[in-house]
């Protein structure tokens, strides 16, 4: 099996995972996200690929699907759906028994030394399946003590499970909190199962909200880290999430992750069938900014599948199906040594990067007039922090904001791939339109190469394509393009696309 080793691209393999990457300093050491956290929390999350923007370049996580049952219904979920092409959270293809899950985790950990975090997140609610979830955790704590455990929950059973959770030494819990108002909750949760009854509407939502808040407080009291996830549903809870953010922060949650609703009729969900739309990238970014004033926001979440394996944005799950792991011999003691070595290498590399970043000029745009407007730019990259991807090959774009205050990483935009592999890139115009729409708000797109026809379309959409920085560091490219815009006078023009 080919291992992904630090600093080594495995693009030579056909099955190679898409490496996600962004500039070392823009998304790492100068990121404002982790810097605001108290030292004790920072220490705990610094190697967690889901919580630290910088760590996700180096460490991997996996989820196992051991928890099928759920105790509530959400309007964005369809319990019937189970499709390998799906990439919504909570949708999984292979239900595992605790024993199978433990075996799979150990197989992955032995083969992907970068795997540091195991999460139980579905397909139902882990805490509605306490025996299965806690049996998995109990065995792993014993057999693979170098793996961190985390759990995601809707919060309904959280208060009664906090005691058990703290026994298993789980230091990360994610609660999905979409509202604190039962009337809004009634538009998101049609029912909850509570004390042996199905309770509908605002009454059910009120119980869920109370349990979530109580569970949050109990976890914080016990020193367990809590992240809050929220699904942004335009017209339902979008404005309300600003209040949610304030409340969960005041109670001590360390991160708030606002995710966009994904709703399509073919998912068969209430929102999908009823035509509820999800937010566009601009709306999502605006809400994230509004909440960010209050607390640490997470911007790099790609809503991984509940049974995903690998670094963020990749899924190597196919290498570890049940029949494949059945045949694997795992010497975990040896694997643990190897893992410790790899982790030490990674840490040495990260320390070097941090030192380099500190040595570099702190703000490469600091000499420009402070009142220039900020500009969003999309970058096509295959990783290593450099501009090294053809526009038509990009599965996603990394979005950066350049301003006289510096360069900061904003988030990801998914692209429709319209180019099937050759370099001509003349076909598939309609997916190109979709990609261009997903880049709304960006004024430039930086990539190694752009075809002629997308170039014209991008320009027509007000997005300036730039292929001049191929193989150069992302941050240098963003700085260069921003300077170019300044020098040509483009920054003094008013822009209707400005995102505050």
């Amino acid at each position, binding site marked *: 099996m080919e291992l992904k080793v630090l600093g080594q691209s495995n693009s030579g393999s056909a099955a190679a995972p898409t490496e996600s990457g962004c500039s070392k300093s823009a998304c790492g050491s100068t990121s404002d996200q982790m810097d605001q956290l108290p030292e004790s929390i920072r220490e705990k999350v610094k190697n967690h690929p889901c919580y630290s923007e910088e760590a996700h370049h180096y460490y991997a996580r996996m989820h196992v699907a051991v928890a*099928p*049952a*759920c*105790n509530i*219904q959400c*309007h964005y979920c*369809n*319990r*019937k759906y*189970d499709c390998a092409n799906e990439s919504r959270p909570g949708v999984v293809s292979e*239900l595992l028994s605790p024993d199978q899950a433990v075996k799979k985790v150990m197989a992955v950990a032995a083969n992907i030394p970068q795997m540091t975090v195991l999460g139980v997140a579905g*397909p*139902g609610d882990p805490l*509605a*399946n306490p*025996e299965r979830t806690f049996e998995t955790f109990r065995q792993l704590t014993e057999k693979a003590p170098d793996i961190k455990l985390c759990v995601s929950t809707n919060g309904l059973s959280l208060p009664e499970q906090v005691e058990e959770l703290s026994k298993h030494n789980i230091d990360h819990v994610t609660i999905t909190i979409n509202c604190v108002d039962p009337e809004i909750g009634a538009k998101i949760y*049609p*029912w909850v*199962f509570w004390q*042996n*009854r*199905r309770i509908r509407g605002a009454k059910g939502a009120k119980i869920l909200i109370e349990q979530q808040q109580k569970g949050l407080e109990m976890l914080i009291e016990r020193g367990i880290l809590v992240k809050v996830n929220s699904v942004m549903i335009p017209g339902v809870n979008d404005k309300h999430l600003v209040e949610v953010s304030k409340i969960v922060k005041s109670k001590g949650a360390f991160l708030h992750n606002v995710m966009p609703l994904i709703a399509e*009729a*073919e998912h*068969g*969900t*209430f929102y*999908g*069938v*009823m035509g509820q739309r999800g937010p566009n990238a601009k709306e999502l970014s605006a809400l994230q900014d509004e909440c960010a004033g209050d607390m640490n926001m997470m911007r790099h979440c790609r809503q991984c599948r509940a049974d995903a394996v690998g670094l963020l944005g990749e899924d190597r799950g196919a290498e570890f199906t049940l029949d494949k792991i059945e045949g694997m011999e795992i010497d975990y003691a040896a694997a643990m040594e190897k893992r410790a070595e790899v982790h030490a290498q990674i840490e040495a590399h990260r320390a070097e990067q941090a030192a380099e970043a500190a040595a570099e000029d702190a703000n490469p745009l600091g000499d420009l007039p402070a009142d220039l407007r900020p500009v969003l730019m999309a970058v096509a990259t295959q990783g290593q922090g450099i501009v090294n991807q053809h526009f038509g090959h990009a599965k996603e774009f990394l979005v950066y904001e350049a301003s006289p205050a510096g360069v900061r990483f904003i988030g990801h935009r998914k692209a429709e791939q319209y180019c099937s592999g050759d370099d001509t890139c003349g076909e598939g115009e309609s997916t190109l339109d979709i990609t261009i729409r997903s880049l709304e708000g960006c004024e430039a797109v930086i990539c190694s190469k752009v075809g002629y026809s997308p170039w014209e379309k991008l320009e027509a959409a007000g997005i300036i394509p730039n292929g001049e920085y191929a193989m150069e560091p992302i941050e240098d490219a963003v700085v260069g393009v921003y300077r170019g815009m300044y020098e040509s006078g483009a920054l003094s023009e008013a822009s209707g696309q400005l995102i505050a």
Partner: protein
Amino acid sequence: MALSINDACVNCWACLPLCPSDAITANLDGATHFAIDAKKCTECDGDYASPQCASICPIEGAILDAGGEALNPPGSLTGIPPELLEQAMAEIQAR
């Protein structure tokens, strides 16, 4: 007096641990869905105000009463009007 489970069941396990009569079996031995042992099922009479399996089951139409009627009819759990769902599905199939 017993409930039954049909093939709409998605094997989510939610009902099984709740049954006070130990009447529910998983999809073992090649069965494609969960099942209720009619001899054991009491419809939760004497234990709970409502049958537990039907109170947590997320799938409309999966659990039937003794007369074969769905305890959770179309639209009752998701809130999606059945005609709309049909229409949406027909449109998707026509693509």
